[in-house]
């Protein structure tokens, strides 16, 4: 007999989930534009599919990124994901021995021990094929149960898992989580009671546990076992039905995300479907809570990516949640699933501001003269005049023929509009600025502002070279165009968000620094660097909250006891200068300082 009524809850739940996922994916494919469809189709026929499988193995099953973050957290996720996966895999192989068919109904391997009661072959049990599977299945169950133990522990002792704060759960999550947590203990009980009742058929754990239970339990063990099988099936069934409405939706969605990502489909303007896939892929692990400076410095604990994404899912996006974010990219950097949290934030700010019109027709789009190199200081640099002053003097020293494009008056680059959720409106501004830049006939655009730098590269689609001044200065130094006599002062370098995480420029400023200064190591640097707190991404926060973020970041640098706090962004400079007890300088100023005042000085060193 290979059927019993109790398999129904599981089977129905499984079918429900299976078709839900099929339908979801169908609608996503349907929403793809021509370009994404092309990528999808060619992806299916390319080796990228193997890359995706590899990524799924390492990230979705082994949880490599989680391991790197915290071994306990990694083990917990791995034991659940990889353990369960192996249970399914081994269970299917095991079931084939008994059924003799290649294809079994899905419930058959799951409830195999209810249908099959094999006598043990002693003493070489483990060397027989059924014995080997009996042993392995019990071992794997133990593996998963150890993860379950940690998961329960994590709810109350999240700091043992490297998390200062674990995410808060919604009701549907709690129900689903309870079902998930019950699945494996119930399986253990069901198999044990069955093995105990028959006296054989279990593995090294289930058999022994079953024997003990049979000894202790005065009732009919087969009835108890049957009840356990029902409950096991029910918990599976409820889990599957609830899954699309809970955070566990991330399990199937993440697989789809990984495939699509490997096919080259990306988050970009107007692709709502991908945004939804990312959203559903969030496992609510809560890693983003701990790295968020609004949490660690300002004590704001309801806006982090995990809660923000949750609010989108529940269609309760509040102005306050969507706007209170530095858009610094720190959570995006640590997200184990690789969700573009910054993009998600801006995408939803856009929803609020879509219909808010702008008019920039007053800009004329003309350059004052033609030049090969144009220097664009940026709005903020006009409030830190040492930076453009240093740049002008350096460029003069290097005998560069350049045009200082925004010398007399500033024009915004458009990124602040984007950060406010107005990308379409920003395009109008960009179009005007682009005309000016093209009118100058330049081949190289150098800017002092990382905010401008990022938008020039990402959205201007200019056919000319675009460099941040740290990159350009390094290039000039390498070419020997700037004479240097450095003082090698002890400096701590701060990576501006839009230059580092935003544009991936980490090495150029550091290479430059090694030539003129003595950079010290700081706690959070490179990808982990902190935001200065001045970010234009933060739409609504008070002065006090921003100050606390700045002070937290400052502390990070002051620990290293630098003579100078060095940055490469006028906004960071201005923000830090308000609180810093040590001098705050831009890299350009330090280069300027290193240029010998008289030609004679170079000779002497």
């Amino acid at each position, binding site marked *: 007999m290979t059927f019993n009524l109790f398999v129904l809850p599981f089977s129905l739940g499984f079918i429900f989930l299976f078709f839900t996922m099929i339908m979801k994916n169908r609608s996503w494919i349907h929403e793809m534009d021509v370009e994404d469809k092309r990528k999808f189709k060619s992806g299916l026929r390319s080796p990228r599919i193997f890359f995706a499988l590899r990524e799924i193995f390492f990230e979705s099953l082994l949880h490599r990124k989680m391991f790197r973050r915290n071994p306990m957290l990694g083990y917990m996720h791995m034991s659940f994901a990889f353990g369960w996966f192996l249970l399914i895999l081994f269970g299917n192989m095991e079931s084939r021995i008994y059924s003799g068919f290649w294809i079994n109904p899905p419930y058959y391997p799951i409830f195999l021990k209810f249908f099959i009661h094999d006598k043990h072959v002693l003493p070489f049990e483990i060397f027989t094929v059924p014995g080997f599977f009996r042993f392995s299945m019990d071992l794997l169950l133990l593996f998963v149960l150890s993860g379950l133990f940690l998961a329960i522990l994590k709810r109350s002792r999240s700091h043992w898992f490297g998390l200062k704060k674990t995410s808060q759960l919604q009701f549907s999550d709690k129900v689903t989580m309870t079902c998930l947590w019950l699945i494996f203990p119930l399986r253990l009980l069901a198999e044990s009671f069955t093995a105990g009742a028959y006296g054989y058929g279990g593995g090294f754990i289930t058999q022994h546990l079953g024997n003990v239970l049979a000894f202790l339990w005065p009732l009919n063990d087969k009835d108890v076992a049957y009840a356990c099988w029902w409950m096991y099936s029910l918990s599976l069934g409820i889990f599957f039905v609830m899954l699309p409405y809970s955070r566990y939706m991330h399990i199937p969605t993440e697989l789809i995300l990984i495939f699509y990502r490997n096919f080259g489909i990306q988050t970009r303007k107007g692709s709502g479907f991908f945004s939804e896939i990312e959203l559903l892929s969030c496992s609510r692990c809560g890693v983003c809570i701990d790295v968020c400076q609004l949490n660690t410095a300002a004590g704001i604990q309801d806006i982090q990516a995990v809660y923000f994404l949750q609010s989108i899912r529940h269609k309760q996006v509040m102005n306050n949640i969507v706007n209170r974010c530095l858009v610094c990219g720190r959570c995006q950097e640590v997200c184990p699933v690789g969700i573009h949290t910054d993009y998600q934030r801006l995408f939803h700010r856009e929803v609020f501001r879509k219909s808010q019109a702008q008019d920039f027709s007053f800009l004329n789009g003309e350059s004052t003269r033609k030049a090969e190199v144009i220097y664009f200081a940026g*709005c903020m640099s006009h409030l830190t005049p040492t930076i453009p002053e240093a740049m002008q003097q350096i460029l003069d020293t290097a005998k560069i023929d350049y045009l200082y494009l925004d010398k007399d*008056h500033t024009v915004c680059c458009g990124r602040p509009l984007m950060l406010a959720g*107005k990308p379409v409106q920003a395009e109008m501004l960009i179009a005007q600025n682009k005309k000016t830049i093209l009118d100058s006939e330049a081949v190289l655009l150098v800017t002092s502002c990382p905010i401008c730098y990022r938008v020039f590269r990402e959205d201007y689609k200019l056919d000319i070279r675009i460099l941040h001044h740290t990159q350009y200065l390094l290039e000039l130094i390498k070419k020997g165009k700037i004479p240097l006599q450095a003082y090698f002062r002890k400096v701590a370098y701060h990576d501006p968000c839009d230059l580092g995480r935003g544009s991936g420029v980490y090495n150029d400023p550091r290479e430059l620094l090694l030539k003129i200064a003595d950079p010290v190591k700081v706690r959070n640097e490179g990808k982990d660097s902190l935001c200065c707190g001045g970010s234009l991404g933060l*739409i609504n926060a008070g*002065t006090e909250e921003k100050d606390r973020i700045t002070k937290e970041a400052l502390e990070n640098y002051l620990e290293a006891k630098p003579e100078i706090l060095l940055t490469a962004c006028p906004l960071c400079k201005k923000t830090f200068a308000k609180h810093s007890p040590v001098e705050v300088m831009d890299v350009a100023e330090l280069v300027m300082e290193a240029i010998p005042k008289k030609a004679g000085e170079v000779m002497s060193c």
Partner: protein
Amino acid sequence: MKSFGYNITEDRQIDFDANDRNVTVFINEIEPSILLCMGCGSCTATCTTGHFTDFNIRKIHTLIQRGELKHLKKEIMKCMLCGKCQLVCPRGVNLRNLILSIHTALEKSGL
């Protein structure tokens, strides 16, 4: 002819009692820091848009406090949200959010 945002034939007295200040209350609630303004004009002096047009963010702010909402929509459309005003403000007024709040308020009130 240059537009100064007013017409000479119009009565230019602020009729404080007649003005509907619901929008003012709404905006002040979203961004309370705008109550801190002391009218120094640093924001307008540094304003990127102000260089090209007669856009005056301090005046917009003050007019809203008096419940004067005429021409508002046309004016705020010019703001680039660059944030320079906010960076020079000696009272820490969140001017970018002021502009965004005006957008929202006008949308909500159908002005």
